[in-house]
Protein backbone atom coordinates (compact mmCIF):
# COMPACT_ATOMS: atom_id res chain seq x y z
CA UNK A 1 0.00 0.00 0.00
CA UNK A 2 2.77 2.36 0.92
CA UNK A 3 4.56 1.67 -2.36
CA UNK A 4 1.35 2.32 -4.25
CA UNK A 5 0.88 5.62 -2.44
CA UNK A 6 4.47 6.58 -3.15
CA UNK A 7 4.00 5.89 -6.86
CA UNK A 8 0.77 7.88 -6.94
CA UNK A 9 2.44 10.76 -5.10
CA UNK A 10 5.36 10.90 -7.46
CA UNK A 11 3.14 10.63 -10.53
CA UNK A 12 0.88 13.45 -9.35
CA UNK A 13 3.84 15.71 -8.60
CA UNK A 14 5.36 15.13 -12.00
CA UNK A 15 2.04 15.81 -13.74
CA UNK A 16 1.42 19.10 -11.98
CA UNK A 17 4.93 20.46 -12.36
CA UNK A 18 5.24 19.58 -15.98
CA UNK A 19 1.96 21.31 -16.72
CA UNK A 20 3.09 24.42 -14.88
CA UNK A 21 6.31 24.58 -16.85
CA UNK A 22 4.27 24.67 -20.07
CA UNK A 23 7.02 22.58 -21.53
CA UNK A 24 6.25 19.03 -22.47
CA UNK A 25 9.58 17.29 -22.53
CA UNK A 26 8.50 14.48 -24.78
CA UNK A 27 7.00 16.80 -27.43
CA UNK A 28 8.88 17.48 -30.63
CA UNK A 29 11.32 20.38 -30.69
CA UNK A 30 9.03 22.37 -32.99
CA UNK A 31 6.05 22.23 -30.67
CA UNK A 32 8.26 23.02 -27.71
CA UNK A 33 9.67 26.11 -29.31
CA UNK A 34 6.18 27.33 -30.26
CA UNK A 35 5.04 26.91 -26.69
CA UNK A 36 8.10 28.67 -25.35
CA UNK A 37 7.60 31.48 -27.83
CA UNK A 38 4.00 31.97 -26.76
CA UNK A 39 4.92 32.06 -23.11
CA UNK A 40 7.91 34.24 -23.77
CA UNK A 41 6.03 36.70 -25.96
CA UNK A 42 4.80 38.54 -22.95
CA UNK A 43 8.31 38.78 -21.55
CA UNK A 44 10.57 39.35 -24.52
CA UNK A 45 10.58 42.00 -27.25
CA UNK A 46 12.15 42.21 -30.67
CA UNK A 47 15.54 43.89 -30.95
CA UNK A 48 15.82 47.39 -32.37
CA UNK A 49 12.43 48.90 -31.62
CA UNK A 50 12.32 51.58 -34.31
CA UNK A 51 9.39 53.17 -32.55
CA UNK A 52 11.32 53.58 -29.29
CA UNK A 53 9.45 56.51 -27.96
CA UNK A 54 8.45 58.72 -25.11
CA UNK A 55 5.73 57.22 -22.99
CA UNK A 56 6.78 53.61 -23.58
CA UNK A 57 6.81 51.52 -20.43
CA UNK A 58 10.13 49.67 -20.34
CA UNK A 59 9.24 46.42 -18.67
CA UNK A 60 10.91 43.09 -18.05
CA UNK A 61 10.53 40.05 -15.86
CA UNK A 62 13.48 37.76 -15.17
CA UNK A 63 13.01 34.03 -14.56
CA UNK A 64 15.03 31.47 -12.68
CA UNK A 65 14.78 27.77 -13.57
CA UNK A 66 16.14 25.28 -11.07
CA UNK A 67 15.71 21.82 -9.64
CA UNK A 68 14.71 21.06 -6.11
CA UNK A 69 14.74 17.40 -5.06
CA UNK A 70 14.98 16.46 -8.74
CA UNK A 71 11.82 18.42 -9.58
CA UNK A 72 12.03 21.41 -11.95
CA UNK A 73 10.69 24.79 -10.92
CA UNK A 74 10.38 28.17 -12.59
CA UNK A 75 10.10 31.36 -10.57
CA UNK A 76 9.48 34.82 -12.06
CA UNK A 77 11.07 37.93 -10.59
CA UNK A 78 9.46 40.90 -8.92
CA UNK A 79 11.06 44.21 -7.97
CA UNK A 80 10.92 43.25 -4.27
CA UNK A 81 11.44 39.50 -4.56
CA UNK A 82 9.07 36.70 -5.59
CA UNK A 83 9.27 33.10 -4.42
CA UNK A 84 5.94 31.79 -5.73
CA UNK A 85 6.75 29.35 -8.51
CA UNK A 86 4.92 29.26 -11.81
CA UNK A 87 4.65 31.52 -14.79
CA UNK A 88 2.41 34.47 -14.06
CA UNK A 89 3.24 34.79 -10.37
CA UNK A 90 5.92 37.43 -10.72
CA UNK A 91 5.66 41.19 -11.09
CA UNK A 92 7.35 43.05 -13.97
CA UNK A 93 10.12 45.53 -13.28
CA UNK A 94 9.04 48.72 -15.04
CA UNK A 95 9.83 52.38 -15.63
CA UNK A 96 8.57 54.87 -18.22
CA UNK A 97 10.69 56.36 -20.98
CA UNK A 98 10.28 60.09 -20.54
CA UNK A 99 9.86 62.68 -23.26
CA UNK A 100 12.59 64.98 -24.50
CA UNK A 101 11.60 67.85 -26.78
CA UNK A 102 14.05 69.35 -29.27
CA UNK A 103 13.07 71.18 -32.44
CA UNK A 104 13.90 74.24 -34.49
CA UNK A 105 12.51 76.76 -36.96
CA UNK A 106 14.72 77.92 -39.85
CA UNK A 107 13.98 80.56 -42.48
CA UNK A 108 14.23 79.18 -46.05
CA UNK A 109 14.93 82.60 -47.58
CA UNK A 110 18.59 83.50 -48.09
CA UNK A 111 17.78 87.20 -48.44
CA UNK A 112 14.83 89.58 -48.35
CA UNK A 113 11.72 88.63 -50.32
CA UNK A 114 11.06 91.47 -52.77
CA UNK A 115 7.46 92.69 -52.89
CA UNK A 116 5.50 95.58 -54.34
CA UNK A 117 3.74 98.24 -52.39
CA UNK A 118 0.14 97.07 -51.84
CA UNK A 119 0.88 93.44 -52.78
CA UNK A 120 -1.45 90.83 -51.29
CA UNK A 121 -0.42 87.35 -50.12
CA UNK A 122 3.32 87.92 -50.03
CA UNK A 123 5.02 84.82 -48.62
CA UNK A 124 7.93 83.98 -46.33
CA UNK A 125 8.95 80.29 -46.16
CA UNK A 126 10.22 78.42 -43.11
CA UNK A 127 11.16 74.83 -42.17
CA UNK A 128 10.16 73.35 -38.80
CA UNK A 129 12.18 70.29 -37.78
CA UNK A 130 11.59 67.83 -34.94
CA UNK A 131 15.20 67.17 -33.99
CA UNK A 132 15.81 63.54 -33.11
CA UNK A 133 19.47 62.95 -33.73
CA UNK A 134 21.74 63.14 -30.73
CA UNK A 135 21.10 60.55 -27.96
CA UNK A 136 19.72 62.22 -24.87
CA UNK A 137 19.56 65.53 -26.76
CA UNK A 138 16.93 64.98 -29.43
CA UNK A 139 13.22 64.33 -29.32
CA UNK A 140 12.14 60.74 -28.77
CA UNK A 141 8.60 60.89 -30.03
CA UNK A 142 6.29 62.58 -32.56
CA UNK A 143 5.17 66.12 -31.77
CA UNK A 144 2.57 68.61 -32.96
CA UNK A 145 3.38 72.33 -33.25
CA UNK A 146 1.25 75.47 -32.99
CA UNK A 147 2.37 78.32 -35.24
CA UNK A 148 2.13 82.09 -35.37
CA UNK A 149 3.76 85.00 -37.23
CA UNK A 150 5.16 87.89 -35.21
CA UNK A 151 6.44 91.34 -36.25
CA UNK A 152 10.01 91.82 -35.20
CA UNK A 153 13.15 93.82 -35.87
CA UNK A 154 15.89 94.30 -36.97
CA UNK A 155 16.30 93.26 -40.55
CA UNK A 156 17.91 89.82 -40.19
CA UNK A 157 19.94 90.36 -43.33
CA UNK A 158 21.56 93.56 -42.07
CA UNK A 159 21.71 96.71 -44.15
CA UNK A 160 18.44 98.56 -44.60
CA UNK A 161 16.42 98.99 -41.42
CA UNK A 162 13.09 97.41 -40.58
CA UNK A 163 10.57 100.21 -41.16
CA UNK A 164 7.06 98.80 -41.53
CA UNK A 165 4.76 95.97 -40.47
CA UNK A 166 2.54 94.11 -42.91
CA UNK A 167 -1.20 94.65 -42.58
CA UNK A 168 -2.82 92.66 -39.78
CA UNK A 169 -3.71 89.82 -39.59
CA UNK A 170 -0.71 87.87 -40.81
CA UNK A 171 -1.54 84.27 -41.64
CA UNK A 172 0.39 81.00 -41.27
CA UNK A 173 -0.25 77.79 -43.25
CA UNK A 174 1.49 74.41 -43.46
CA UNK A 175 2.56 72.97 -46.82
CA UNK A 176 0.36 69.93 -47.42
CA UNK A 177 2.67 68.23 -49.91
CA UNK A 178 0.43 68.32 -52.98
CA UNK A 179 2.48 71.02 -54.71
CA UNK A 180 5.61 71.40 -52.61
CA UNK A 181 7.86 74.39 -53.08
CA UNK A 182 5.24 77.15 -53.31
CA UNK A 183 2.28 78.35 -51.31
CA UNK A 184 -1.00 77.17 -52.81
CA UNK A 185 -3.94 78.81 -51.03
CA UNK A 186 -6.37 76.06 -51.97
CA UNK A 187 -4.07 73.22 -50.86
CA UNK A 188 -2.01 74.56 -47.97
CA UNK A 189 -4.74 75.24 -45.44
CA UNK A 190 -3.61 73.51 -42.22
CA UNK A 191 -2.87 76.01 -39.45
CA UNK A 192 -0.82 73.74 -37.18
CA UNK A 193 1.70 70.92 -37.69
CA UNK A 194 0.28 67.47 -36.92
CA UNK A 195 2.40 64.42 -36.00
CA UNK A 196 5.93 65.43 -36.92
CA UNK A 197 8.22 62.45 -36.17
CA UNK A 198 11.80 62.91 -34.94
CA UNK A 199 14.28 63.67 -37.74
CA UNK A 200 11.49 65.02 -39.93
CA UNK A 201 10.57 68.50 -41.19
CA UNK A 202 7.59 70.43 -42.54
CA UNK A 203 7.45 73.57 -44.66
CA UNK A 204 5.45 76.49 -43.27
CA UNK A 205 4.35 79.69 -45.07
CA UNK A 206 3.82 83.11 -43.50
CA UNK A 207 1.38 84.97 -45.75
CA UNK A 208 0.93 88.76 -45.45
CA UNK A 209 -0.50 91.78 -47.25
CA UNK A 210 1.91 94.69 -47.86
CA UNK A 211 0.50 98.15 -47.10
CA UNK A 212 -0.09 100.42 -50.13
CA UNK A 213 1.69 103.29 -48.39
CA UNK A 214 5.19 101.81 -48.29
CA UNK A 215 7.84 102.87 -50.75
CA UNK A 216 10.90 101.35 -52.33
CA UNK A 217 13.60 99.87 -50.09
CA UNK A 218 11.37 99.66 -47.03
CA UNK A 219 11.86 96.48 -44.97
CA UNK A 220 9.53 94.42 -42.79
CA UNK A 221 11.07 91.68 -40.64
CA UNK A 222 8.65 88.91 -39.64
CA UNK A 223 9.30 85.84 -37.46
CA UNK A 224 7.64 82.43 -37.39
CA UNK A 225 7.23 81.05 -33.86
CA UNK A 226 6.52 77.36 -33.23
CA UNK A 227 5.16 76.13 -29.87
CA UNK A 228 5.47 72.45 -28.93
CA UNK A 229 2.31 70.37 -28.52
CA UNK A 230 1.82 66.69 -27.62
CA UNK A 231 1.93 64.29 -30.53
CA UNK A 232 0.96 60.68 -30.77
CA UNK A 233 -2.56 60.97 -32.21
CA UNK A 234 -4.08 62.62 -35.27
CA UNK A 235 -5.40 66.12 -34.67
CA UNK A 236 -3.98 68.77 -32.39
CA UNK A 237 -2.77 67.41 -29.07
CA UNK A 238 -2.54 69.17 -25.72
CA UNK A 239 -0.13 72.13 -25.65
CA UNK A 240 2.99 71.47 -23.60
CA UNK A 241 3.60 74.91 -22.13
CA UNK A 242 5.66 73.74 -19.18
CA UNK A 243 8.05 70.88 -18.63
CA UNK A 244 9.05 68.89 -15.56
CA UNK A 245 12.34 70.69 -15.19
CA UNK A 246 11.09 74.12 -14.17
CA UNK A 247 10.83 75.53 -17.69
CA UNK A 248 7.78 77.30 -19.12
CA UNK A 249 6.59 78.69 -22.43
CA UNK A 250 5.37 82.29 -22.77
CA UNK A 251 1.75 82.97 -23.74
CA UNK A 252 0.70 83.32 -27.36
CA UNK A 253 -2.11 83.31 -29.91
CA UNK A 254 -1.71 80.69 -32.61
CA UNK A 255 -3.45 79.11 -35.59
CA UNK A 256 -4.36 82.44 -37.19
CA UNK A 257 -6.11 83.61 -34.05
CA UNK A 258 -7.98 80.42 -33.24
CA UNK A 259 -5.87 79.10 -30.37
CA UNK A 260 -5.02 81.14 -27.31
CA UNK A 261 -2.34 79.61 -25.08
CA UNK A 262 -1.68 80.92 -21.59
CA UNK A 263 1.84 81.19 -20.25
CA UNK A 264 3.03 77.95 -18.67
CA UNK A 265 3.25 77.54 -14.90
CA UNK A 266 6.49 76.32 -13.38
CA UNK A 267 6.28 72.63 -12.42
CA UNK A 268 9.08 71.36 -10.26
CA UNK A 269 7.38 68.13 -9.11
CA UNK A 270 9.91 65.35 -8.52
CA UNK A 271 10.20 62.84 -11.34
CA UNK A 272 7.88 59.85 -11.14
CA UNK A 273 7.53 56.41 -12.63
CA UNK A 274 5.19 58.02 -15.16
CA UNK A 275 5.89 60.28 -18.12
CA UNK A 276 7.90 63.47 -17.66
CA UNK A 277 8.72 66.00 -20.36
CA UNK A 278 11.99 67.90 -20.68
CA UNK A 279 12.37 70.89 -22.99
CA UNK A 280 15.66 70.83 -24.86
CA UNK A 281 14.95 73.31 -27.67
CA UNK A 282 17.67 75.89 -28.47
CA UNK A 283 17.32 79.66 -28.02
CA UNK A 284 15.55 81.31 -30.94
CA UNK A 285 17.26 83.90 -33.12
CA UNK A 286 14.45 86.37 -33.01
CA UNK A 287 14.19 88.32 -29.81
CA UNK A 288 10.43 88.35 -29.44
CA UNK A 289 8.18 85.45 -28.54
CA UNK A 290 4.55 85.05 -29.46
CA UNK A 291 3.72 87.44 -26.66
CA UNK A 292 5.37 90.10 -28.76
CA UNK A 293 5.59 92.77 -26.11
CA UNK A 294 9.35 92.72 -26.51
CA UNK A 295 9.69 91.76 -22.85
CA UNK A 296 9.85 88.02 -23.44
CA UNK A 297 12.71 86.41 -25.30
CA UNK A 298 12.91 83.05 -27.02
CA UNK A 299 15.32 81.49 -24.56
CA UNK A 300 16.56 77.95 -24.73
CA UNK A 301 14.32 75.21 -23.32
CA UNK A 302 11.09 77.19 -23.35
CA UNK A 303 9.11 74.90 -25.65
CA UNK A 304 9.33 77.44 -28.48
CA UNK A 305 11.65 78.22 -31.34
CA UNK A 306 11.60 80.88 -34.02
CA UNK A 307 13.44 82.36 -36.96
CA UNK A 308 13.12 85.59 -38.96
CA UNK A 309 12.56 86.45 -42.61
CA UNK A 310 12.01 89.86 -44.23
CA UNK A 311 10.13 91.58 -47.02
CA UNK A 312 11.71 94.38 -49.06
CA UNK A 313 9.65 96.81 -51.17
CA UNK A 314 11.09 96.98 -54.66
CA UNK A 315 11.97 100.07 -56.69
CA UNK A 316 14.76 102.56 -56.96
CA UNK A 317 15.37 104.95 -54.11
CA UNK A 318 16.12 107.81 -56.53
CA UNK A 319 13.60 109.46 -58.86
CA UNK A 320 14.32 112.50 -61.02
CA UNK A 321 11.56 114.66 -62.38
CA UNK A 322 12.54 117.19 -65.03
CA UNK A 323 10.62 120.27 -66.14
CA UNK A 324 11.37 123.31 -68.25
CA UNK A 325 10.16 126.88 -68.28
CA UNK A 326 10.57 129.21 -71.24
CA UNK A 327 11.64 132.74 -70.40
CA UNK A 328 11.02 134.94 -73.43
CA UNK A 329 13.27 137.95 -74.05
CA UNK A 330 10.08 139.79 -74.63
CA UNK A 331 8.64 138.65 -71.30
CA UNK A 332 6.47 135.93 -72.75
CA UNK A 333 6.85 132.21 -73.18
CA UNK A 334 7.73 132.00 -76.84
CA UNK A 335 10.73 129.74 -77.47
CA UNK A 336 12.57 131.76 -80.11
CA UNK A 337 16.23 132.30 -80.74
CA UNK A 338 17.73 134.07 -77.78
CA UNK A 339 15.05 132.95 -75.40
CA UNK A 340 16.09 131.37 -72.12
CA UNK A 341 15.07 127.89 -71.12
CA UNK A 342 15.16 127.26 -67.41
CA UNK A 343 15.49 123.57 -66.59
CA UNK A 344 14.55 122.19 -63.18
CA UNK A 345 15.56 118.75 -61.90
CA UNK A 346 13.81 117.50 -58.77
CA UNK A 347 15.82 114.67 -57.25
CA UNK A 348 13.55 112.64 -54.95
CA UNK A 349 14.93 110.11 -52.45
CA UNK A 350 12.68 107.45 -50.87
CA UNK A 351 13.24 104.62 -48.40
CA UNK A 352 14.97 104.30 -45.12
CA UNK A 353 18.46 103.86 -46.43
CA UNK A 354 20.92 106.32 -47.89
CA UNK A 355 22.25 106.67 -51.40
CA UNK A 356 25.98 106.91 -51.85
CA UNK A 357 27.96 108.34 -54.74
CA UNK A 358 24.90 110.11 -56.12
CA UNK A 359 25.99 112.17 -59.15
CA UNK A 360 23.37 113.79 -61.37
CA UNK A 361 24.37 114.63 -64.94
CA UNK A 362 22.24 116.32 -67.56
CA UNK A 363 23.52 117.07 -71.08
CA UNK A 364 22.85 120.57 -72.41
CA UNK A 365 20.31 120.16 -75.23
CA UNK A 366 21.40 120.57 -78.82
CA UNK A 367 20.99 124.06 -80.31
CA UNK A 368 21.26 125.65 -76.92
CA UNK A 369 24.08 127.21 -74.95
CA UNK A 370 24.57 126.96 -71.20
CA UNK A 371 24.24 130.23 -69.38
CA UNK A 372 27.41 130.43 -67.30
CA UNK A 373 26.90 130.52 -63.54
CA UNK A 374 23.23 129.67 -63.80
CA UNK A 375 23.33 126.43 -61.84
CA UNK A 376 21.64 126.62 -58.49
CA UNK A 377 20.98 124.00 -55.85
CA UNK A 378 18.38 123.98 -53.12
CA UNK A 379 16.90 121.51 -50.72
CA UNK A 380 15.79 120.99 -47.14
CA UNK A 381 19.40 120.50 -46.06
CA UNK A 382 22.50 122.57 -46.90
CA UNK A 383 24.19 121.50 -50.15
CA UNK A 384 27.69 122.50 -51.22
CA UNK A 385 27.44 124.45 -54.54
CA UNK A 386 31.11 123.76 -55.27
CA UNK A 387 30.03 120.36 -56.48
CA UNK A 388 27.52 121.70 -59.01
CA UNK A 389 29.26 122.65 -62.25
CA UNK A 390 29.13 122.84 -66.02
CA UNK A 391 31.50 120.47 -67.84
CA UNK A 392 32.40 122.39 -71.02
CA UNK A 393 34.18 119.46 -72.59
CA UNK A 394 31.18 117.16 -72.27
CA UNK A 395 28.67 119.99 -72.52
CA UNK A 396 26.73 118.77 -69.52
CA UNK A 397 25.67 119.83 -66.09
CA UNK A 398 27.25 117.79 -63.30
CA UNK A 399 26.01 117.85 -59.72
CA UNK A 400 27.94 115.62 -57.31
CA UNK A 401 25.54 115.26 -54.37
CA UNK A 402 28.00 112.85 -52.74
CA UNK A 403 30.35 115.85 -52.45
CA UNK A 404 33.35 113.87 -53.55
CA UNK A 405 32.14 110.56 -52.14
CA UNK A 406 31.91 111.96 -48.64
CA UNK A 407 28.16 112.39 -48.29
CA UNK A 408 25.25 109.93 -48.17
CA UNK A 409 21.99 111.42 -49.40
CA UNK A 410 18.90 110.33 -47.49
CA UNK A 411 15.21 111.12 -47.47
CA UNK A 412 16.03 113.98 -45.11
CA UNK A 413 17.80 115.72 -47.96
CA UNK A 414 14.93 115.14 -50.37
CA UNK A 415 13.95 116.71 -52.70
CA UNK A 416 17.10 118.34 -54.10
CA UNK A 417 16.16 120.96 -56.66
CA UNK A 418 18.71 121.76 -59.39
CA UNK A 419 18.06 124.53 -61.87
CA UNK A 420 20.13 125.82 -64.77
CA UNK A 421 19.53 128.04 -67.76
CA UNK A 422 20.38 127.69 -71.44
CA UNK A 423 19.70 130.03 -74.30
CA UNK A 424 18.36 128.94 -77.60
CA UNK A 425 20.99 129.39 -80.30
Amino acid at each position, binding site marked *: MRDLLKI*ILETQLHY*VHRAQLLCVRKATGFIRSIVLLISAAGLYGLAGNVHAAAGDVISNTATV*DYFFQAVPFTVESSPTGNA*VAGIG*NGVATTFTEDRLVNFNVVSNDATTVVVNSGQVSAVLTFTVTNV*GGAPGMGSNGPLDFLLTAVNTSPNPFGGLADTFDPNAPMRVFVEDGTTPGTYQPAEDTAVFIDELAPNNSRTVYVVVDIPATVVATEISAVALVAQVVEGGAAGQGAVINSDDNGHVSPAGIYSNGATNVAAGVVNNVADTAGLET*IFNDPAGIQPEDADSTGAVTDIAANGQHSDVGAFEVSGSPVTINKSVTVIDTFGGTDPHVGATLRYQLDVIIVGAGGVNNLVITDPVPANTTYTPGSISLSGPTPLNPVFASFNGGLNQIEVDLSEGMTRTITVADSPVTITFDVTIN
Partner: protein
Amino acid sequence: MKNLNFIIAMLISFLMFSAQSFAEEGNVKLTNKAFKQVIKTNDKGEKVLDYIDPALALPGDVIFYTTTFENIGKEPATKVVINNPIHGNLKYRQGSATGKDTEIKFSIDGGVSYDSPEKLFVTDKTGKKWAAKPEDYTAIRWIYKKQLLPGEKGTVSFRAIIRKPGE
Protein backbone atom coordinates in the same frame (compact mmCIF):
# COMPACT_ATOMS: atom_id res chain seq x y z
CA MET B 1 -12.56 -3.48 -2.86
CA LYS B 2 -14.99 -0.68 -3.53
CA ASN B 3 -13.83 0.90 -0.28
CA LEU B 4 -10.22 0.68 -1.38
CA ASN B 5 -11.02 2.30 -4.73
CA PHE B 6 -12.82 5.06 -2.90
CA ILE B 7 -9.90 5.53 -0.51
CA ILE B 8 -7.44 5.64 -3.41
CA ALA B 9 -9.63 8.14 -5.26
CA MET B 10 -9.83 10.34 -2.17
CA LEU B 11 -6.10 9.99 -1.67
CA ILE B 12 -5.42 10.99 -5.25
CA SER B 13 -7.60 14.11 -4.97
CA PHE B 14 -5.96 14.95 -1.66
CA LEU B 15 -2.49 14.48 -3.14
CA MET B 16 -3.38 16.52 -6.17
CA PHE B 17 -4.65 19.27 -3.93
CA SER B 18 -1.61 19.21 -1.69
CA ALA B 19 0.73 18.75 -4.63
CA GLN B 20 -0.87 21.83 -6.19
CA SER B 21 -0.31 24.00 -3.14
CA PHE B 22 3.11 22.49 -2.55
CA ALA B 23 4.14 23.19 -6.15
CA GLU B 24 3.30 26.90 -5.86
CA GLU B 25 5.91 27.51 -3.19
CA GLY B 26 9.36 27.51 -4.78
CA ASN B 27 12.57 27.56 -2.82
CA VAL B 28 14.26 30.35 -4.69
CA LYS B 29 13.27 34.00 -4.34
CA LEU B 30 14.00 36.12 -7.43
CA THR B 31 14.35 39.92 -7.29
CA ASN B 32 14.87 42.08 -10.40
CA LYS B 33 15.60 45.80 -10.05
CA ALA B 34 16.30 48.53 -12.59
CA PHE B 35 18.43 51.60 -11.86
CA LYS B 36 19.65 54.56 -13.86
CA GLN B 37 23.43 54.75 -13.82
CA VAL B 38 24.71 58.30 -13.34
CA ILE B 39 28.08 59.86 -12.70
CA LYS B 40 28.47 61.98 -9.62
CA THR B 41 31.39 63.61 -7.88
CA ASN B 42 32.16 62.28 -4.39
CA ASP B 43 33.52 64.22 -1.41
CA LYS B 44 37.08 63.74 -2.64
CA GLY B 45 36.16 65.30 -5.96
CA GLU B 46 36.43 61.98 -7.79
CA LYS B 47 33.91 60.94 -10.40
CA VAL B 48 32.05 57.86 -9.24
CA LEU B 49 29.07 55.87 -10.50
CA ASP B 50 25.77 56.15 -8.70
CA TYR B 51 22.57 54.18 -9.19
CA ILE B 52 19.28 55.97 -8.85
CA ASP B 53 15.59 55.38 -9.49
CA PRO B 54 14.98 55.59 -13.27
CA ALA B 55 12.19 58.15 -12.74
CA LEU B 56 13.68 60.34 -15.47
CA ALA B 57 14.72 58.04 -18.31
CA LEU B 58 15.71 59.46 -21.67
CA PRO B 59 17.45 58.09 -24.78
CA GLY B 60 21.13 57.64 -24.10
CA ASP B 61 20.63 56.87 -20.41
CA VAL B 62 22.35 53.73 -19.08
CA ILE B 63 20.02 51.37 -17.22
CA PHE B 64 21.56 48.92 -14.75
CA TYR B 65 19.57 45.72 -14.10
CA THR B 66 20.46 43.62 -11.08
CA THR B 67 18.83 40.25 -10.42
CA THR B 68 19.24 38.45 -7.11
CA PHE B 69 18.40 34.77 -6.58
CA GLU B 70 18.19 33.47 -3.02
CA ASN B 71 17.56 29.96 -1.72
CA ILE B 72 14.97 30.39 1.01
CA GLY B 73 14.29 26.71 1.33
CA LYS B 74 15.87 23.90 3.30
CA GLU B 75 17.38 21.92 0.41
CA PRO B 76 19.94 22.93 -2.22
CA ALA B 77 18.68 24.20 -5.58
CA THR B 78 20.54 22.73 -8.54
CA LYS B 79 20.92 23.52 -12.24
CA VAL B 80 20.03 27.13 -11.54
CA VAL B 81 19.56 29.19 -14.72
CA ILE B 82 18.54 32.85 -14.78
CA ASN B 83 17.05 34.42 -17.93
CA ASN B 84 16.49 38.16 -18.27
CA PRO B 85 14.93 39.72 -21.39
CA ILE B 86 16.17 43.02 -22.85
CA HIS B 87 13.26 45.34 -23.68
CA GLY B 88 13.05 46.51 -27.31
CA ASN B 89 13.66 50.15 -26.29
CA LEU B 90 17.07 49.16 -24.84
CA LYS B 91 20.30 48.04 -26.45
CA TYR B 92 22.65 45.79 -24.53
CA ARG B 93 25.93 47.35 -23.52
CA GLN B 94 28.68 45.01 -24.67
CA GLY B 95 30.63 43.28 -21.92
CA SER B 96 28.38 44.51 -19.13
CA ALA B 97 26.73 41.18 -18.18
CA THR B 98 28.28 39.84 -14.96
CA GLY B 99 27.55 37.04 -12.49
CA LYS B 100 29.93 35.26 -10.14
CA ASP B 101 30.24 31.54 -10.92
CA THR B 102 28.04 31.80 -13.99
CA GLU B 103 28.39 31.02 -17.65
CA ILE B 104 26.75 33.78 -19.68
CA LYS B 105 24.98 33.37 -23.02
CA PHE B 106 22.82 35.62 -25.17
CA SER B 107 19.69 35.25 -27.28
CA ILE B 108 18.81 37.07 -30.47
CA ASP B 109 15.49 35.30 -31.01
CA GLY B 110 13.47 36.53 -28.08
CA GLY B 111 14.64 33.96 -25.57
CA VAL B 112 13.97 30.83 -27.61
CA SER B 113 17.64 29.90 -27.86
CA TYR B 114 20.86 31.12 -26.26
CA ASP B 115 24.48 30.86 -27.29
CA SER B 116 27.85 32.49 -26.77
CA PRO B 117 28.42 35.73 -28.71
CA GLU B 118 30.72 34.32 -31.36
CA LYS B 119 28.09 31.76 -32.32
CA LEU B 120 25.27 34.27 -32.82
CA PHE B 121 24.51 35.30 -36.38
CA VAL B 122 21.73 37.39 -37.86
CA THR B 123 20.56 36.90 -41.41
CA ASP B 124 19.60 39.98 -43.40
CA LYS B 125 16.96 40.20 -46.13
CA THR B 126 19.43 39.12 -48.82
CA GLY B 127 20.21 35.96 -46.87
CA LYS B 128 23.68 37.14 -45.85
CA LYS B 129 24.83 36.17 -42.35
CA TRP B 130 26.37 38.76 -40.06
CA ALA B 131 27.83 38.30 -36.60
CA ALA B 132 25.21 39.52 -34.16
CA LYS B 133 26.00 42.82 -32.46
CA PRO B 134 25.19 43.64 -28.85
CA GLU B 135 22.25 45.78 -29.97
CA ASP B 136 20.74 42.63 -31.56
CA TYR B 137 20.58 40.75 -28.25
CA THR B 138 17.08 40.26 -26.89
CA ALA B 139 17.80 38.25 -23.72
CA ILE B 140 20.64 37.14 -21.47
CA ARG B 141 21.09 33.78 -19.70
CA TRP B 142 23.28 33.10 -16.69
CA ILE B 143 23.96 29.41 -15.97
CA TYR B 144 24.95 29.07 -12.31
CA LYS B 145 27.72 26.51 -12.11
CA LYS B 146 27.31 25.62 -8.47
CA GLN B 147 24.52 24.40 -6.26
CA LEU B 148 22.62 27.12 -4.48
CA LEU B 149 22.69 25.99 -0.88
CA PRO B 150 19.95 26.93 1.58
CA GLY B 151 20.40 30.53 2.68
CA GLU B 152 22.79 31.31 -0.17
CA LYS B 153 22.18 34.06 -2.64
CA GLY B 154 23.78 35.19 -5.87
CA THR B 155 23.49 38.29 -8.03
CA VAL B 156 23.75 38.78 -11.75
CA SER B 157 23.56 42.09 -13.60
CA PHE B 158 23.85 43.86 -16.93
CA ARG B 159 23.64 47.34 -18.41
CA ALA B 160 21.61 48.55 -21.37
CA ILE B 161 21.21 51.94 -23.04
CA ILE B 162 17.88 53.52 -23.97
CA ARG B 163 17.76 53.71 -27.77
CA LYS B 164 17.16 56.92 -29.63
CA PRO B 165 14.39 56.91 -32.27
CA GLY B 166 15.31 54.81 -35.26
CA GLU B 167 18.16 52.98 -33.53
